[in-house]
């Protein structure tokens, strides 16, 4: 049923793209370079997180400043659940059936990892639901931004001050399930799929209607508050997924969560274009690449290398002045556009060939 209406060319192209993405992930995973594994992983995870934020900021048109908090929640939930399961089942069993001898994962390991991550995402979604009910029904615009900011501060401070939830250093994860680019890639595909189909359904339509005009939406029979809470919950769930994935990779420290992360995600979304999923993914790539690759080069001036975030402010100012809609605006990638590009290129080439003889004459 799912792909019944897709035309064949697009369906095949999509499948090829997904396979190529996953193959790329496996390639990186098996490669020697830890840096590249880290970069690709972080790009994939940040893409998911940015998509989640974009659902609220772009599609719902509300300004949320606290998605870092939801990532942290997903992270904490994933770690706690993973620790719990490991203690329940026992380390010996893990040695035998979960890990391979080279530190990778057996099929059962992948199963545990996936369910861990998904459960954490659902828990975060529940928290998002509560926050949504409290905040979205009454508040909008700046006030909502302030409340979400406050909520994320609460999350951050609670986890910082309760040792069982991590303490100031963050939870020390010994249960690392060896999250790998492959898993992140799969989860990114899943998130994109979820968001696209959600937005294509009656729920997504209601969301967009709320973005464009609350009063008119209400007059068209859309239960505006319910619709907003649903979308916010959905967004929190995806953000929780990103946070949970973060938990399973050695190279990331939980200390990275907090307000900085919320702002970083917001910059990614604004840079890519509010409402453009493609834009979010592209700009997540740019920002992470800049952070992890560019700033670690030896030829980069010391000033930049030690203050990578200084560029964020500049990016925001420049984007707002010259292209306030972001890189892509609200445009989305589509196969029609992609193949149209080829046709245009071809036409241009043919034209050039035809025109050259005339010039000679």
């Amino acid at each position, binding site marked *: 049923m799912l792909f019944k209406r897709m035309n064949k060319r697009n369906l095949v192209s999509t499948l090829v793209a997904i396979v190529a993405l996953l193959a790329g992930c496996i390639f990186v995973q098996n490669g020697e370079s830890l840096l590249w594994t880290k970069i690709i992983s972080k790009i994939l995870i940040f893409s998911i997180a940015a998509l989640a934020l974009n659902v609220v900021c772009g599609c719902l048109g509300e300004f949320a400043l606290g998605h870092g908090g939801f990532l942290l929640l997903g992270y904490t939930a994933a770690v706690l659940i993973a620790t719990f399961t490991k203690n329940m089942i026992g380390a010996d069993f893990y040695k035998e059936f979960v890990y391979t001898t080279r530190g990778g994962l057996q099929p059962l390991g992948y199963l545990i990892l996936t369910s861990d991550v998904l459960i954490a995402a659902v828990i975060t979604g529940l928290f998002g639901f509560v926050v949504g009910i409290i905040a979205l029904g009454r508040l909008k615009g700046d006030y909502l931004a302030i409340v979400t900011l406050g909520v994320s501060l609460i999350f951050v401070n609670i986890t910082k001050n309760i040792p069982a939830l991590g303490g100031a250093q963050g939870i020390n994860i010994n249960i690392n399930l060896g999250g790998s680019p492959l898993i992140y890639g799969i989860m990114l595909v899943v998130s994109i799929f*979820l968001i696209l189909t959600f937005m294509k*359904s*009656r729920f997504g339509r209601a969301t*967009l209607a709320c973005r464009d*005009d609350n009063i008119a939406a*209400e007059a068209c029979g859309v239960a*505006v508050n319910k619709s907003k809470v649903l979308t916010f919950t959905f967004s929190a769930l995806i953000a929780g997924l990103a946070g949970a994935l973060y938990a399973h990779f050695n190279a990331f420290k939980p200390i990275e969560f907090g307000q900085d992360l919320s702002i970083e995600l917001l910059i990614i979304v604004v840079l890519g274009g509010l409402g453009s999923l493609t834009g979010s993914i592209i700009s997540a790539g740019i920002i992470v690449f800049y952070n992890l690759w560019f700033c670690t080069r030896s030829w980069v001036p010391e000033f930049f290398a030690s203050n990578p975030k200084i560029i964020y402010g500049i990016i925001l100012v420049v984007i707002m002045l010259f292209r306030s809609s972001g890189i892509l605006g609200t445009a989305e990638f589509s196969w029609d556009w992609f193949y149209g590009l080829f046709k245009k290129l071809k036409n241009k080439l043919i034209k050039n060939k035809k025109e050259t003889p005339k010039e000679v004459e």
Partner: protein
Amino acid sequence: MSKVALKANNISIVFGGLRAVEDFSIEIKEGELVGLIGPNGAGKTTVFNMLTGVYIPTSGTIELRGVDVTKMSAHNRVKMGISRTFQNIRLFKRMSVLENVKVSSNINMNYSIFDGIFKTKKYYEQEDKATAEAMEILEVLGLSEYVNEQAQNLPYGKQRKLEIARALASHPSILCLDEPAAGMNPIETEELMETIKIVREKFNTAVLLIEHDMKLVMGICEWIKVISFGKEIATGTPDEIKNNKEVITAYLGE
């Protein structure tokens, strides 16, 4: 003859110390075309807002097809068979024309979020039905060539029509039009008159019309209610209204 589509009994609303509308009553039967006129600031739009659920009246009751909806919220009232357009156009600007209309069809759908994400048979059935209906409405209103256009790119007159199309998609038994001819030139107004007539016949809906354009109101309405300073001053056929002394006084002064 036919059943009552909308009935308001002595509704009043007070904002602070201001009695914006006082003891307003109206009864519209199915399929009727009724005008509501009055000088600027008379409370016409306030009446509309009470009927459609934006404001809850301070006193009085409102019934839709015999059901008391006085305390019902606006989006639930749409399900009871009332829909409206706005004085200042309120389209979903960045959505396509078709999607604009389909937003109103949402109330006729009941597939779950699971159906929506995995696109089950139910999803396709309901979405297809809504699309077909929306296309039909757009066809009647002469918008079928703009289906995939963004709503904000339509010319002004078409935007007005799209608002009507959107209001029709929820299968209303009464359609409230708030100054549909505002800002239109005489030719567009004439076209709109035709549209309203066609819509009413095709979709079998009663129409309540607020309008300043007297030619339009007198031309198509079966009967007219006049309010001034929140109070009803006259009810009658267009001819009766034209010769009513109080109405002339309200509009032109002594």
